[in-house]
């Protein structure tokens, strides 16, 4: 590991959000929003404008840390995210930063690979984000296929808007709305497409809202918000701060993880009933801010990553259990091979 100091991030500032993506022509691009002690807010976009970097090297990271464009923000920034999107009347798509502000959604893009990032009109990229219901707190975009995307927006007044958008024409196909009673802290869209015929089937939307139980809306693209499943005891204590969705490597079922400020991680499985009790709860030494289910060891087994106010915890599945399941799978594969050779 190596520490790279980024220029012009004052030592006493508060970093609000950070995001990065890899651009084919420019390599790694990093966006950081921060608030200075004076109350001024800034967005710094670090991008190596110099030479073409087809492959990313460690030394480029140091160069990257010096070349940046700074935007003085007239609003309070929240979540910073990015999306590969096609601008209106453009032929090709490129990645842009989307910044949630307390006034509206802001988009930062490059017209071409060589020029600096500029703030652009949101309507040319995301037609569904033009209207702002309240202060947006969380944005989740999921590409269903090449031509359609699903956008879910959570607001500070508890409103959730869901859109099905045609990417090619940048028009809204369908939209749904629901009102929750507290600030939406995180939204996750997850396709449970066990049925392959209908691509829109079984899309689930997990909603973490601060002062109430977390909810999963199943099959949102067909039923909208009609089929909620309440994740019991997630809202018992303090704020629900985050959620993550993944699959159990042992049985292939969907797992939902909810993190709370009262230092808990709750895991839910099997969403066939309207109210689900947690299958597993773990307490942490500090409040949980963010959680993620992903494979970081490269063995195709997801790890549970928990980000607390004091550090990051990585939880691993019980490898004994996984190995036993995998042994049985491999045995059945071996028998299948033997059968074929016998025939």
């Amino acid at each position, binding site marked *: 590991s190596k520490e790279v100091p980024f220029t012009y991030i004052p030592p006493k500032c508060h970093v609000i959000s950070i995001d990065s993506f890899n651009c084919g022509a420019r390599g790694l691009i990093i966006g950081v929003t921060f608030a200075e002690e004076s109350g001024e807010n800034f967005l710094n976009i670090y991008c190596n404008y110099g030479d073409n970097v087809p492959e990313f090297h460690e030394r480029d990271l140091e160069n990257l840390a010096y070349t940046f464009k700074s935007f003085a923000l007239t609003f309070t920034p929240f979540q910073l995210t990015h999306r590969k999107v096609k601008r209106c009347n453009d032929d090709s798509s490129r990645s842009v930063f989307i910044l949630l502000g307390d006034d509206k959604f802001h988009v930062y893009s490059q017209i071409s690979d060589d020029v600096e990032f500029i703030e652009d009109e949101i309507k040319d990229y995301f037609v569904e984000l033009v209207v702002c219901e309240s202060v947006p707190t969380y944005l989740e975009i999921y590409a269903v296929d090449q031509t359609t995307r699903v956008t879910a927006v959570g607001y500070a007044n508890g409103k959730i808007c869901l859109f099905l958008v045609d990417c090619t024409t940048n028009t809204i196909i369908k939209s749904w709305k629901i009102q929750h009673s507290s600030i939406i802290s995180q939204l996750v869209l997850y396709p449970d497409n066990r049925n392959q015929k209908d691509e829109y089937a079984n899309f689930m939307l997990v909603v973490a809202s601060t002062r109430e139980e977390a909810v999963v809306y199943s099959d949102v693209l067909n039923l909208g918000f009609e089929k909620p499943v309440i994740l019991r005891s997630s809202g018992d204590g303090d704020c629900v701060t985050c959620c993550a969705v993944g699959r159990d*490597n*042992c*049985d292939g079922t969907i797992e939902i993880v909810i993190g709370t400020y009262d230092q808990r991680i709750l895991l839910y*499985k099997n969403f066939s009933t309207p109210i689900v009790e947690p299958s*597993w709860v773990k307490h942490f*030494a500090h409040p949980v801010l963010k959680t993620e289910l992903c494979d970081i060891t490269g*063995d195709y*087994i997801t790890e549970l990553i928990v980000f607390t106010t004091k550090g990051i915890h990585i939880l691993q599945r019980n490898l004994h259990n996984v*190995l036993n399941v995998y042994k049985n*799978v491999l045995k059945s594969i071996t028998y299948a091979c033997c059968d074929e050779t016998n025939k």
Partner: protein
Amino acid sequence: MRSVSFVDHLKIKVNGKVGQGCIALGDVDGDGCSELVVADDGGHVQVFKGDSTKPCWESSDFGDITCLTIADLCNEGKNCVAVFTTDGAFSILDFNKSQNLKCKTHFKFKIVVLKLDAPIIHSDHVIPNIMNVLVSDLDSDQLNELIACHSDHCVSAYRWNSKHKRFTILQRWTLRQLVGNISIHVSSDEGVPSIIVSQPGCSYAVLSINWNQSEAVKTGPNISESTVTYTPLSRFVHIDSSQSRSQNPTITCQILGDITKSSSSPAGYFALCTLDGTLKLMEEDKILWSLQVDHQLFALYKLDILGDNREEVIVCAWDGQTYIVDHDRNVVRYQFLDNVQAFCAGSFSIDSKQNRPCFVYSDFHNHVWLYYDVKLPFLKATDLLTFAESDQEMSRLFLQLGATTIEEKRSLLKKCGSTILDQVKLNSNNDKDLNSQYSKDTWL
């Protein structure tokens, strides 16, 4: 180095400073479950049982307590608590007669000897300046002896005389340098215990007993010399090539013997740790490994944290950094949230049913923190691929399927995952089969 965090704890308020040696874990009332005994510098002793942060027994005016122990000191087949003070006074508390040692209920306890003053002890050997004590059967006569380590280069052995209700001195050793602490160690398979004493600069001495030998041997020449065998640091320097910095010859050192190798062998390892951050695991007079850290290690304990019948070495530093090290030098660390003035590792029963491994810390703000379930599934984390390669049945399956390289094995694991997923998609109509059992150890 992997770091872990422990969550479940009790925060116990105490009235004063709790020094190292003034915390003990053990079964004081004979119910098979361990309790916590804490003594503070105001002479206040408290016993904690179960999940209550209120003491189930407390008493004050014990004096300036330096150490306490829970052991069968009186050879009556039951544990008692012995409290020792700087001026040589000691008290033996017996909780076994109190039928129900329950929280918040005042119960009658029997003090066998309360504040017996030093002159009453046999001969002119009083026992002041005790730094730490241990109770063990050293001469294999099925009776326990008390070994006391004094702050004036001395170690002495006593036996409880139940008829006269006093300690009889058996032997006294004088060492060349200040003693850090003492421990009992069985070095050979015959199971004969010996006393090991830590000496400054990560060295130690072995004390041998002569009270069960004939008078002729005892009165022979060089009596004091022959019972102390020094094992100086200089002998190890050339053996231990991993030693990266020269050892400070005056640095305070702790020693711990009888670290269980396996359940079959009575002989164990022993460990040494120093205040400048060296930890060494030794077998007989050979250094198995040594570990250098940048923390001031002051407390050394052993505890089976993994549940594999082998005892891990636990060391704690003044700043709260705690290391858990197994016999193969796999290390896991835990950072306690504050500076530590005393540390103890042992077993405690939070539910009065089962003893669990636990850590006890005492901070500088009059609190004792009891982390009551510090069990760990493993010290060294691996990924599934490495884990699968170490499994015999799995390697055979890999071989049958013609996977030899890491990439081939990795792709087989990927195939397993996608096969499971395909099965789920096929079975999408009967959801009831998918209710797999979720247990506490699904995520580690």
